[in-house]
């Protein structure tokens, strides 16, 4: 077991994204979904928040979790990202139960951009992004050539190379969100979670972040799982949506098919029209 881990370490220092691919090819779980949730239950005290959630996340796709406030989507997100532990049920990452992975092992396979972030006032973009290498390092270990390469790559992909020496506190909201995404990318994982990545941003930066997410998915094949509030953005940018209500999955699948006037009524309890402009589906959310 120990030597197997060591081997993985060696390959991962050569090229993380490629080695993950190589590894997953040999893996007997290769044809398993990126993530699978089976009969998940969770409650805060007596308040049952999740009542038997089961779902599959397809590899290489963008999946958006949506639903009204209090439907359990944040709890589901926390459980899938190992921030909470399920009372009952299991979560599998490529067929492996995530409960059997420690935080560090999990962080080498799954990166998470949390909804609310903060950092010290004077940290530079590059130093903050470099935190993303933490799960690949031992304590006190400096940056290897591989770490450097991943940091440069993450900065380039998020268009932050020019801002690398600037303090994060001096960036705009949209740029700051890109820094947190860059930090997550730096972990070199094939799966990326984002919790309401557009919440604190104005519309221009919202679109910018969603386009970046799409680019990460299309160019680098990263599996994306995110929570979004805006139904139209969910339709436009997701391959799959998961609609939740009262701690259960109500709809699951291609937004073109599953987002309808009926499903919106059930999910949000409001009558909204659904129309098409240039062949694209829109919900009249006003």
């Amino acid at each position, binding site marked *: 077991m120990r030597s197997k881990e060591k081997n993985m370490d060696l390959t991962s220092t050569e090229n993380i994204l490629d080695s993950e691919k190589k590894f997953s090819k040999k893996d007997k779980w290769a044809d398993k979904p990126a993530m699978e949730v089976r009969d998940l239950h969770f409650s805060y005290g007596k308040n049952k928040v999740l009542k038997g959630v089961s779902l599959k996340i397809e590899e290489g796709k963008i999946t958006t979790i949506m639903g009204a406030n209090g439907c359990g989507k944040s709890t589901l997100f926390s459980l899938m*990202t190992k*921030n909470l532990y399920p009372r009952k049920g299991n979560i599998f990452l490529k067929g492996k139960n995530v409960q059997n992975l420690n*935080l560090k092992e999990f962080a080498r396979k799954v990166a998470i951009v949390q909804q609310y*972030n903060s*950092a010290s006032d004077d*940290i*530079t973009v590059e130093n903050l992004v470099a935190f993303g290498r933490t799960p690949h390092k031992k*304590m006190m270990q400096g940056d290897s050539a591989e770490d450097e390469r991943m940091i440069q790559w993450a900065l380039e992909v998020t268009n932050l190379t020019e801002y*690398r020496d600037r303090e994060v506190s001096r960036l705009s909201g949209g740029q700051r969100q890109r820094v947190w995404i860059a930090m997550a990318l730096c972990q070199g994982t094939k799966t990326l979670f984002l919790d309401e990545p557009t919440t604190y941003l104005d519309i221009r930066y919202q679109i910018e972040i969603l386009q970046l997410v799409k680019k990460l998915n299309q160019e680098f094949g990263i599996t994306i799982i995110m929570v979004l509030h805006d139904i139209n953005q969910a339709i436009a940018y997701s391959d799959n949506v998961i609609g939740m209500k009262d701690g259960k999955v109500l709809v699951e699948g291609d937004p073109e098919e599953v987002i309808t006037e009926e499903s919106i009524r059930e999910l949000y309890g409001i009558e909204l029209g659904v129309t098409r402009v240039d062949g694209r589906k829109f919900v009249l959310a006003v």
Partner: protein
Amino acid sequence: MSEKETELEKATESGRISEADAADLSGQDKARKHRKTAKAAISFIVMIVLLVALFFAAVNIGSLKVSFPELLKGLFVKYNEDVATIYDLRFPRIVISMLAGAAIAVSGVLFQAVLKNPLADPGIIGISSGASFAAVLITAFAPTLFFFTPLFAFLGGVVAFVLVYSLSWKGGLSPLRIILVGVAVDAMFTGLSSGLNSMNGGDMSGVAAIVNGNITMKTWDDVRTLVPYVIVGLVLALIFTGMCNLLSLEDKTARSLGVNVNLMRIIISMIAVLLASISTAVAGVISFLGLIVPHIGRLLVGSDHRALVPFSALFGAFIFLLADTIGRTIAAPYEVSAAIIMSVVGGPFFIILLRRSKKYAK
């Protein structure tokens, strides 16, 4: 730059900043970064020079005076009565001042990182008085266990910390609540120590020394008590500087990077309690040092703990030695303890910080 990236750049900046401007800005950032690095490097060098200068000044301040060559000669080459007296009487308190100053300052840095609160100070939040009370208990009731005083002081500090942490936890740690609960815990332990002192007739020099932070009569034995703990504490603090940096992120974010945040909190807290308690056991309760030093340190070397921790150690050693040296010259032949000097200077400083900080004193 590839076509796609240029396109995205256009989309993201929507033509507000041209590429030439962007290059210019990144040049400015670079220059700014270099200025900061230079400032930090100069701060370190100046601090080391000042500390060495103060050390020799402190050696020479008092009724006995020797020249620098005489001192070196007396220490390393040939016996000299004056130098020997200075070595036995002044050196221990100087070394203790520096070690305790370094320990308390670094303890402050660590508490601030763990509690995410720039106003946390082992003196203010009651860690030192918890440690002090335990030390007083041992001195009063089991003087034969004197050798284990540091250990009991540490346990006292742990009890105080657990009290402050658990009592100020209310679904989260509010910076102000930590200070308020800390002040109450501090008052309680200080009262207990003073009460114990009074009950014993108030003339127990050992107890009084711990309560009042008196380091007049320190010997090389006290130095030997302090050295191993302080060195272990400082080395551990240096090892965990990277983790302190990660704790500056939101807990959830640090966790998503594979960091066991709660475990790190406990470990770093225990290092901070160790440093504060040990110095309290030998040098008494010193308030505000762990607050002032890291605060100025952040302005000079930045908030990266890899620089802040070693700088605070040097700066803390300097400030404590300065306070002790001023204390024994300001009203010679009477002595004012370093603890009193720190309180008189530190109190106003703390109020200024409170008033200037938008975040913590609404």
